[in-house]
């Protein structure tokens, strides 16, 4: 069973990473979701698979009988699921807001923060001008001013 799960986890990691490397935003988020679940499954598996032996202490005893499943990895996974859920919800809202702002779901259109601004020269050729126009330009920084309360 462990071997089967190892392959499942490996497959999930591959799928998640492949999706994350796509240019489409929705696929990026799906990739993150798959990756998170792959990690959860990994913790579940490496914690040791013990079937049908809940870590319960019978009435009147002080220790559970025999070998029982380790409940700690499951507690870890539970925490990780909750965190993953919250983060994923945020990522979806972020994606939607970005889609509204950029009007594209292609990650290649979101490079304005990475690029060096071009030198502003006056001997621009026409083709260069056209190339500039078709490219997204970075939003003008907004000046923060404190407004006095009424």
């Amino acid at each position, binding site marked *: 069973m462990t071997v089967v799960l190892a392959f499942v986890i490996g497959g999930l990691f591959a799928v998640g990473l492949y999706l994350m490397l796509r240019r489409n935003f929705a696929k990026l988020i799906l990739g993150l979701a798959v990756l*998170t679940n792959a*990690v959860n499954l*990994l*913790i579940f598996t490496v914690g040791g698979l013990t079937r049908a032996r809940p870590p319960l202490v019978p009435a009147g005893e002080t220790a559970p009988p025999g070998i029982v499943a380790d409940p700690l990895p499951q507690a870890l996974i539970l925490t990780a699921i909750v965190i993953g859920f919250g983060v994923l919800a945020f990522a979806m809202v972020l994606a939607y807001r970005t889609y509204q702002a950029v009007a594209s779901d292609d990650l290649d259109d979101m490079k304005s923060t990475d690029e060096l601004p071009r030198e502003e020269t006056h001997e621009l050729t026409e083709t260069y001008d056209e190339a500039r126009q078709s490219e997204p330009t970075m*939003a003008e920084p907004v000046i923060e001013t*404190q407004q006095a309360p009424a």
Partner: protein
Amino acid sequence: MNVLLLLPILIPLLTAIITLLFHRQSRVQQIAGVGGAAALFGAASALLVAVLRDGIQAGQFGNWPAPFGITFVADLLSAIMVVLAGLIGLTVTIYSVATINVRRTMFGYYPLVHILLMGVCGAFLTGDIFNLYVWFEVLLIASFVLMALGGERGQLEGAIKYVTINLFSSALFLVAVGILYAEAGTLNMADLARRLPTLPQQGLVTTLGVLFLVAFGIKAAFFPLFFWLPASYHTPPAAISALFAGLLTKVGVYSLIRTFTLLFVQDVAYTHTLILIAAGLTMVVGVLGALVQTNLRRALSFLIVSHIGFAVMGLGIFTPFALAGAVFYIVEDMIVLTALFMVSGVIQQLGGSHDLRELGGLYKRAPGLAILFLLPALSLSGIPPLSGFFAKLALLRAGLESGQYAIVATALAVSLLTLLTIMRIWSEVFWKPAPRHAKARGAISAIDHGHREALLGRMPIAALAALTVILGLAAGPVFDLATAAAGQLTQPDGYIQVVFGGRP
């Protein structure tokens, strides 16, 4: 349970709740935000004093004995880091009062800052590796929202990269934690430190170490893993950038220092050499990136990356002296970078731009600001008598003593290039005549901007700049403190004993 260990987590939580309750009254939020940060700074200082007086402090949540409950430990390194988190929280919240607009305040700026501070303090104080993951997520979620708060296009684009790469790093971190638990059967860091050397598969332990190195390396932004930082840190308002620059990458560096002094010290020749090589490349690539930037805050972002290299270099050399240098360097770095990012915000207010080509002549209008920029900037490049000089001196001496000449040469060259970068920025922003086509709106905004707010915005910068001078002039006692912290790191027996020593 020692209450001092809990206060750095409870105070930001309480402040976040209070500021959230008053989310419509921005004035109340500002007062509570600054007050909470001041209380955090006070509590953290009390913790540092207690650690100095009584040694390492430890406490168990829920009073379960050590390997079972979640342990909180404050050794000197943790206490110093928490004090700095309080200091940066305080200066940034004061700066925020002057610079963060009402809209962002209404959308929960102050609660988020305090949740971020809570996550940072939790990460510094926890003694449990899974708990460290949870604190990382707390601070990451808060930083995600802060990064995107305001919804400008650049911010959202930066946030996508920031969120994706940090979630990936968290996934790696979680994988490493899961396998570590499977191998060692414990998550308590002190317990792990005892058990890891006894494990039969030492190769696997080293592999896990490298997994942690990659996960924390992404968060600390060192060499091949730093690209998200210059793509995102310059997009939010200066106060948020300053908070991130001071705190977030340093949490990654702290985690690296903690895990690679306490847990993964079995194969130092491999892991720490890897760290050293990454440190050297980080310094070089970061400073070269900063040199070519024309955007002030992007250049500063690259300088963050470059100077992560110096802090990690101390860990890579891995002698007590080098670690002391690294601790001193982190302290100096947090103060200096926060100050520089705050100055960049004021520069934008005065000059109306981040673009070095559109700025100029600010020395005439704000000579004080020019000095406030110059002090931390010179400290960053290591000019005596500022604090950066002594931190660099310690690191370089440690490098020479352990025969790591290549890294010493790299560090010296990078310091020179840092000096070149910041002098270039300084002369572009302050010294060269204002370009003729400069937009007039800068001048207008300076008039709009009330005198009181302008003063409030400069006060925290002045305090931090003064602190770099003071830390430089009082380098002896500070270095003694860093040496004591490094001593605790290289002799982890004390740490382990305190964790298992029952209730303090």
